[in-house]
């Protein structure tokens, strides 16, 4: 099969690899129809995630058709069109039994601190991902779901991570009616989170970024007020003034490890890999939220330490809530929202690249060229 493969930081290519095989009785093999590049894939691409091995195939956002199932699979059959959550999880361990699918204890041999994720290094289990023609899907009776006939393929694709994660992030923000929420980052997850804050009854939603075209998207797609942090002297002070000195009731960090806005922090983390991630967004969140407020962390960080302002968080009495999204838990409600016309996740998609051109897709996405927000990977005609 053809698959995207990692060749070292900033370098990928398309290789021929052996087709994946059923390695466990509850596996399925899925032929990928659509995949996408997630902002967090860029952390892998930039060499920031420990134990990212040469030859690894990225991709944790994909939909496709079931090609083959293992002997114990009951809920899927060959030919089914499925959306696959980015979480790989068993459905039966202590964590899964409580709905914490992203924290499964039974799938990631390489670490207990995180569950299993497709195509996200060996730190999340060493499973090749969906930026390939075929992919192994473990626990096929638990994760994947048949795509309902009335749901567009690209909406389903965006529910496998980006939109579900944004929706989850807005829930972790503990929003009550009339709250002011600041969303740091106008990438796909930030935009989805901003849009979702309104579903929770927010009174104001303010999106912060330094890319003008994404702020424009935040205004059009997420009905948000926006701040270009490159055009203000002090982003925290600006946000404080916008909230009458109080600070926001909640702040959502939808940026993560490669946050910009402070050259030293960014370079030591994103370029020199001396921190587990650039803590700029997290520190802005701590400083910009009101005392007693809530911070929702959706941005992905590496496992190493980062220079986070813990003292401020303690003194302000903050609640910090974080997790990888347990994606499938979000789906029933999100499908209702799509059907009701409340959201259309596919509106986030701006670019399409064929698998053969995926290196260019990564470069354009990483360099933020051409107004890119969400790139999708297609698989020939």
């Amino acid at each position: 099969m053809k698959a995207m493969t990692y060749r070292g930081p900033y370098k990928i290519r398309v290789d021929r690899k052996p087709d994946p095989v059923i390695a466990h009785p509850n596996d399925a093999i899925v032929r990928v129809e659509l995949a996408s590049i997630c902002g967090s894939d860029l952390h892998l691409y930039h060499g920031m995630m420990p134990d990212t091995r040469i030859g690894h195939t990225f991709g944790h956002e994909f939909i496709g058709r079931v090609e083959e199932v293992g002997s114990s699979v009951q809920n899927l059959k060959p030919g089914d069109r499925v959306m696959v959550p980015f979480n790989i999880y068993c459905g039966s361990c202590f964590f899964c039994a409580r709905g914490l699918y992203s924290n499964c204890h039974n799938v990631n041999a390489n670490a207990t601190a995180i569950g299993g994720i497709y195509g996200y290094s060996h730190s999340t289990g060493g499973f090749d991902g969906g930026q390939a023609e075929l992919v192994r899907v473990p626990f096929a009776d638990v994760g994947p779901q048949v795509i309902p006939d009335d749901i567009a393929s690209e909406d389903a694709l965006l529910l496998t991570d980006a939109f579900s994660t944004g929706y989850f992030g807005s829930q972790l923000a503990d929003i009550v009616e009339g709250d002011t929420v600041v969303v740091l980052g106008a990438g796909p997850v930030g935009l989805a989170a901003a849009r979702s804050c309104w579903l929770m009854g927010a009174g104001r939603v303010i999106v912060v970024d330094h890319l003008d075209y994404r702020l424009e998207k935040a205004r059009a797609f997420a009905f948000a007020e926006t701040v270009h942090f490159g055009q203000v002297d002090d982003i925290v002070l600006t946000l404080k003034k916008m909230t009458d000195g109080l600070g926001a009731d909640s702040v959502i960090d939808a940026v993560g490890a490669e946050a910009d806005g402070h050259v030293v922090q960014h370079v030591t983390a994103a370029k020199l890999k001396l921190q587990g991630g650039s803590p700029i967004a997290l520190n802005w969140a701590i400083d910009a939220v009101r005392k007693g407020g809530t911070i929702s962390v959706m941005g992905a960080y590496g496992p190493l330490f980062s220079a986070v302002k813990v003292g401020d968080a303690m003194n302000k009495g903050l609640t910090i809530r974080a997790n990888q999204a347990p994606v499938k838990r979000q789906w029933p409600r999100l499908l209702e929202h799509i059907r009701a016309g409340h959201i259309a996740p596919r509106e986030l998609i701006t670019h399409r690249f064929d698998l053969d051109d995926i290196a260019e897709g990564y470069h354009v996405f990483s360099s933020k060229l051409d107004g890119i927000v969400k790139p999708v990977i297609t698989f020939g005609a």
Partner: protein
Amino acid sequence: MPYTADKPGHTPDPDDLRRRIPGWGADLDPADRPAFPREQPGIDTGAHWRVPEQQPHGAGRERSLEHERLTPVFGTAQPLHGLSGLIRRVAYAHYSEGQTPHWMLLILGDRVESAGAHVRSLFSRRPDDPVTQSGVFGERGRHPIASRFGRGRVDVKHAWLDPVLVVGPWVAAAVVVFRIARAAAVPASRR
């Protein structure tokens, strides 16, 4: 403005928000929020086992010290090999996830594997090509200048580092190879 018990500023009108924003307040009741409460004992996951069957062929597969056994399912994507595999195996066998050397060794293993793979590729039928693999041809027709400049992007300040990070190791390796070759070919007295 004096500090009082009231929330300062304008209170948004829910009717206006409902009119303006599709779905406003649809999940106002926490009961409509799928992530509430965070833990939901008894949730139906679709699993029809109490303990999953063990995936075979796991002998020798590295695992975190914090796992008491190899997980029932594990990735088989890129098994450990060579010097990088040795480094990574030390990380997994001797350091728990809470220890910095665990992660630093894994990162070291990444860099060692990356360098080795590039060298090996030079002797293969498909050597690494740092130009096409960087995706830089994606710049064509995608407004590389207009996308970057005059828009207040703060990452432009350090963007010059990216090509250094991509090309730098190749240049450094070429210098090392040249020096070694020169040392081998030319006697010290004639250098």
